[in-house]
């Protein structure tokens, strides 16, 4: 047995602790699974997004920031001024994006660790790749822009929310961009049911293979879309999918992201208007 290295920089609890929900009387899960198979629990249509709340300039210490809430999925993003790329000697023509995606320790059903785990590192890489094509990186050579995304609560589609939120935060930070970035996720269950913008339960349902033939499509796809350029900047897919289904899903995602795009635009417009009003009021005074 290896002893776990003790984190001396944090206050330590007991060596082992277990979440209590595994001792709960197990009855609700089965019935839930059946319910999802029939229709969506929150009463949405299969191609309907959750209500999205967006707000920019939520944090004063960051150059740009944004907050997104899709029912119980809550993500906050901040973007900082370009700074010199640390530990780099050669000239780089394009500026760099540094992206960090993190789940807050209390954001998921299970407690998350404080250090970035492999899933979070993977998500950070996806976030970076989704944002990079939208940013005019040639405008800040040799510099780096830091983008931090923190998931406060995860109820499905956290990556999609983080990408949309980070896109808005970049815009709020006045970083030159070719286009906004919006991302939407879709889940497909083995029964052929599609869930646009799935919740955590629906995500889990898409990966239950019970009682089905192995040939069907299942899994989830997250697509980041540059709406006015009509281009995908990043598509993340897990599970397995028949080619035709995959193409179909991408089309539907592109269509769905138009709605999210409209909301992002409105949010930015509103932010500009309010800042203008404040300026006018100041001038009058």
């Amino acid at each position, binding site marked *: 047995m290896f002893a776990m290295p003790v984190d001396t920089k944090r206050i330590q609890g007991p060596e082992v602790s277990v979440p209590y929900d595994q001792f709960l009387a197990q009855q609700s899960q089965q019935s839930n699974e059946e319910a999802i198979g029939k229709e969506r629990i929150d009463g949405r249509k299969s191609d309907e997004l959750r209500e999205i709340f967006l707000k920019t300039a939520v944090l004063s210490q960051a150059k740009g920031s944004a907050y997104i809430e899709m029912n119980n999925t809550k993500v906050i993003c901040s973007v900082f001024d370009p700074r010199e790329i640390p530990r780099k000697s050669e000239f780089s023509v394009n500026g760099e994006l540094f992206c960090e995606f993190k789940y807050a320790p209390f954001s998921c059903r299970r407690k998350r660790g404080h250090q970035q785990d492999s899933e979070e590192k993977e998500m950070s890489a996806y976030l970076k790749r989704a944002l990079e094509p939208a940013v005019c990186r040639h405008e800040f050579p040799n510099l780096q822009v830091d983008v*931090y995304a923190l998931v406060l609560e995860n109820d499905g589609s956290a990556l999609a929310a983080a990408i949309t939120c980070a896109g808005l935060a970049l815009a709020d930070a006045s970083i030159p961009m070719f286009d906004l970035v919006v991302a939407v996720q879709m889940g497909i269950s083995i029964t052929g049911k599609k869930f646009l913008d799935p919740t955590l339960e629906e995500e889990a349902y898409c990966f239950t293979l019970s009682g089905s033939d192995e040939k069907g499509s299942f899994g989830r796809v997250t697509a980041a879309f540059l709406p006015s350029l009509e281009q995908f900047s990043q598509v993340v897919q897990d599970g397995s999918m028949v080619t035709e289904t995959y193409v179909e899903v991408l089309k539907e995602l592109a269509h769905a992201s138009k709605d999210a795009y409209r909301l992002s635009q409105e949010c930015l417009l509103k932010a500009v208007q309010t800042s203008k009003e404040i300026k006018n009021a100041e001038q009058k005074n």
Partner: protein
Amino acid sequence: MALQYKTIHPVKYLRDFLAHNVRPDGRGLLKFRPMALNVRSISSADGSALVKIGNTSVICGIKAELATPKAEEPDRGFIVPNVELSPLSSSKFRPGPPSEEAQVASQFVFDVILNSGCIDTKCLCIVPDKLAWVLYCDLVCLNYDGSVLDACILALMAALNTVSLPEVEYDHEKSTTTVKTERVPLKILSMPVSTTHAIFDDEVLLADPTCEEEDLASGTITVVVSEGKLCSVWKPGGSPLTESQMDGCVDRAKNRVSSVLDLINTALKSSS
């Protein structure tokens, strides 16, 4: 013009304001910033609260788990508070292990819990020597704009008040655990309230300093009051203060308690 002046000579900029008994954000020297509190904001946590003091915001989420009590304290549960000064909150912080400041803040919060006795860890024990609750209290700073310790204590206390733990049955013979659906609210024994002052130019006291003011200050002092008693006076070095200045800090800390407790109570009432 003001912005350039501030960048080139930040100390003088602040001094000019203070000479007129006003601070850059328009407050008087000993005035506190407005506070806002939202509780039960995170449904995946067992207790949560989001606090804003001026622009400073801290979110606290509490996760409860089960563990075996320590052999030397078989009748006690655990509280594990950790403050995270996330790189999201300020350009001062970088990703990676907690900075020295974050560690000091975590220890401060831990000490306040211990000193104020706001939670009796004996209440967290379910079966002595076998089963006890662990409360992981994670405080994440979202916006770092001064007086973070005050915000942390406020967020923690508000979040602890929203915690309710399910009832647990333990079978001694089979040593199995069953968690029931009924929940019991956590017993909070006292409500500590923290108040920070910054010392500028060795003599001027500024209540509830912003990040700018803290950076230029020559010291800070944090006083925690709980149920009319002091449970921490913490002045980690910095400029020396006279006794009357210290007493002023303690008095203001005492006077602030009722407004903070009102805020917590209102937030709790409106959410339940």
